């Protein structure tokens, strides 16, 4: 399984077709990401040649996405990351990758602690 997995097991739909993510940690991370999305978008359109989120390259601008290169390193992309500058792909978005990774680490830590 990829580190990017959305953990679709945790996704449900309510009676109006709305996404309901049952894992509270992933839900919180996604909500944070939705809130930050506008600034991420602005950064990606600000002329950064590294193509934050667009090409899969780690951004170097250090503005909205500080830490992205680390996220990419952790994520260990196993496919060609250059998507030719087309519309971004969720799993290729460094903030999302890091958010999910953080959530999973936090969740796993919690499980480990409870087992201990």
């Amino acid at each position: 399984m990829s580190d990017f997995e959305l953990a679709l097991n945790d996704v449900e739909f309510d009676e109006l077709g709305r996404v309901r993510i049952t894992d509270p940690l992933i839900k919180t991370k996604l909500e944070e990401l939705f809130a930050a999305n506008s600034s991420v978008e602005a950064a990606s359109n600000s002329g950064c040649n590294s193509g934050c989120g667009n090409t899969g390259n780690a951004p170097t601008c250090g503005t909205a996405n500080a830490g992205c290169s680390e996220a990419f390193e952790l994520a260990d992309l196993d496919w060609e990351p250059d998507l030719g500058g087309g519309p971004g792909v969720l799993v290729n978005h460094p903030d999302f990758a890091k958010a999910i990774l953080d959530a999973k680490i936090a969740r796993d830590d919690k499980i480990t602690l409870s087992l201990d």
Partner: protein
Amino acid sequence: MTFSIDAFDNKTLELIILPTEECNFRCTYCYEDFAIGKMSPKIVEALKRFITKRAEELSNVSIEWFGGEPMLEYGIVTDVMDHTQRLFGGKSLNGSMTTNASLLDEKRFRKLVSLGVSSYQISLDGLPIDHDMTRKNRGGNGTFDKIWQNLTQICEIKDLDFSILLRVHFSPEKLANLPKFIVMLDEAFGHDERFRIFLKPIGRYGGENDGVIEELSKIEEEQVFSQLLSLRPNIKMEDGTRGATMKNMPVCYAAKANAFVVRANGLLSKCTVDLRSQKNLVGKINDNGSLDLDVQKMKYWLRGHNNGKVENLYCPAHT
């Protein structure tokens, strides 16, 4: 650019509505079977109730009218758009339509644009002699002249903001006249930035006509596009060849959690092409406007987000 994280955002809703699955055309390469007729008043009301229930929390709504030929049920289109526009006020409401344009006269077009349906995709198969070979009406007659009349009348409208994507289909037997047709389009619409060309090769998308469809190779498709581009028309030409789309894989609406195809019979699907597949029947809309969704089937369409395969996000139906 929009990140596909939006695919899970409950503030966004993308509906592709088929007000009828009947069509007044019988294009020789069409993949649809026209088995389901128009949307019943009960389904229309259910759809409006669904939109009403979701309206308050939504900030971006996209309604794409598809079919069949959606203009056959112009009354349903205007009813639902009027309802939605009243609910949304100043919020972002993007209306669009894929239509053969045979019924898109100026009066109806003005009304639709006023209701927020401002983007159109209209198909043409080449010069009249080529177009009428494949895009026939139900009676077997050619359709070019009526479409062209409507398009040129729409082009004369100067007080409206809209966009029209002229989807130009090409296939091996029609290549010879294609440069002439691009020149014809350029002369008619090249001065108007609201019009663009989208060059799309005919393909096999399922259905009874697949056996008689001739396809070009990917390389041949690219050569055709390059040749047409060398004509340097004023009108903007977009590349819809397989090679181009593979380079720039967008996330398909079918791979988004917040996108639904509303069939004319009230069933819900994810894909507008894979219409006969059971896996594409993901639920139904109830009379009270709620949805019954098969979560496991939904997750099948969303699997690209889980497995990281770009191709599953680009086309979850055929990968």
